[in-house]
């Protein structure tokens, strides 16, 4: 991406006005790391939104509200009771990238290997988008297709509301990589709600080994109403093949990807169940 001009708007409405005026020639810049790798060399104007007060983490009742320009390192370092977002952020890229790369940058244009969409789908998060007024979009709707299309008209992601996990809720995420800082071979996230020993509700999502992050409905259906036990988790994980087109790459066959996903689903479910039963903070 070639930047030909750099704009630093003073407010959110001004930023939106800039983007609407620029149309296809405008490009939101937060951390900006992705811009360096875009192969399109059409000159664009960068609209820097990093100084608009969109970097924050607030506990607001039933949600943690995370600003769109919050660096991943801040999410990784944040601590609160039953906070779960730090684990996946620690696994994303390197320390230097996490200091710059933002939550919004990871989910406004979703790459197949992105980890945060997987986690936000499992967590049933809500994306807040400014279009003159703020509107919330549930993760299922937001990640149904490439979110970048939503922002072509100048709208701006301002924050993400992640539900605060209750005492009987648990969350687990697994990212399988070849080396510490490489992109994921598979990413799995699972959120369980327990009712005693049984699973009351489940959200399981996957990414990286499939074309686009998505939930795994057959896996979820095989969990609800049943005991939160390893045998049940194994059986549910075995349904993953029916839920997504697992694909091979980097020497992995599609079958290997699916198998890796099944093993990772089992691990994520075990972690979520342990969390729900009372994770050591």
């Amino acid at each position: 991406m070639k930047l030909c001009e750099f704009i630093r708007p003073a407010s959110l409405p001004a930023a939106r006005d800039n983007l609407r005026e620029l149309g296809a020639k405008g490009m939101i810049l937060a951390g900006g790391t992705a811009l360096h790798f875009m192969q399109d060399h059409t000159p664009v104007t960068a609209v820097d939104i990093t100084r608009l007060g969109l970097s924050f983490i607030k506990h607001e009742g039933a949600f943690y509200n995370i600003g769109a320009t919050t660096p991943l390192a801040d999410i990784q370092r944040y601590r609160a009771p039953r906070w779960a977002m730090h684990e996946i952020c620690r696994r994303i890229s390197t320390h230097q990238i996490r200091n710059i790369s933002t939550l919004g940058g990871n989910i406004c244009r979703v790459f197949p290997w992105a980890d945060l969409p997987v986690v936000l789908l499992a967590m049933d998060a809500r994306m807040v988008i400014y279009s003159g007024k703020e509107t919330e979009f549930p993760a299922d709707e937001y990640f149904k297709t490439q979110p970048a299309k939503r922002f072509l008209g100048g709208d701006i992601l301002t924050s993400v509301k992640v539900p605060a996990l209750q005492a009987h809720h648990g969350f687990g995420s697994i990212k399988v990589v070849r080396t510490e800082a490489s992109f994921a071979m598979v990413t799995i996230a699972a959120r369980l709600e327990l009712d005693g020993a049984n699973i009351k509700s489940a959200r399981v999502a996957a990414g990286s080994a499939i074309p686009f992050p998505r939930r795994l409905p057959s896996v979820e259906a095989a969990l609800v109403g049943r005991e939160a036990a390893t045998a049940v988790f194994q059986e549910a994980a075995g349904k993953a093949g029916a839920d997504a087109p697992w694909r091979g790459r980097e020497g992995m066959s599609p079958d290997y990807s699916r198998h890796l996903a099944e093993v990772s689903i089992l691990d994520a479910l075990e972690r979520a169940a342990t969390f729900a039963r009372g994770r050591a903070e």
Partner: protein
Amino acid sequence: MKQNPNTVSFTLNGELKTFATEPNEKLLALLRREGYKGTKYGCGQGTCGACTVLMDDRAVYACLLYAMQAEGRDIRTIESIGTFDKPSELQQELIQGGAVQCGFCIPGMIMSAEALMKAETTFDDDIVREYMDGNLCRCTGYEKIWAALRKVLDRQESAGVQGSGASSHPES
């Protein structure tokens, strides 16, 4: 509010400076053009860590930052850490431990260690690995670099010097 497309101003190694630049110029290119060549150009794509500098005390890759993003920030490069005559404590340990082979990765390693010492109050191995995970060395196998850094961190912990990065500044 349009930014002046021709200049960027930021504090560089303690001095407020203004540089001519263009929107597409990377911070790494600007620094090296202005003579701060201790910050190395390695991979140019945010992998090797040779270009690591501190921005507001956080380690960042200068190759993945547009110079304009540094406007108003506090940037520190390896030139702020030590000199040939007065190396920092970590630089001394790296030399004494034979941890510097080709030396290309070392400025970035030192800047990441600097970020660690500025931000953290304890230095267990996990946190050290976390701060150093974005710096590659293709000569030493890391062992000697790790040992040198560990010595400095252990001394800091023993002395109760925490979160100050003081050991990196022999003058202070």
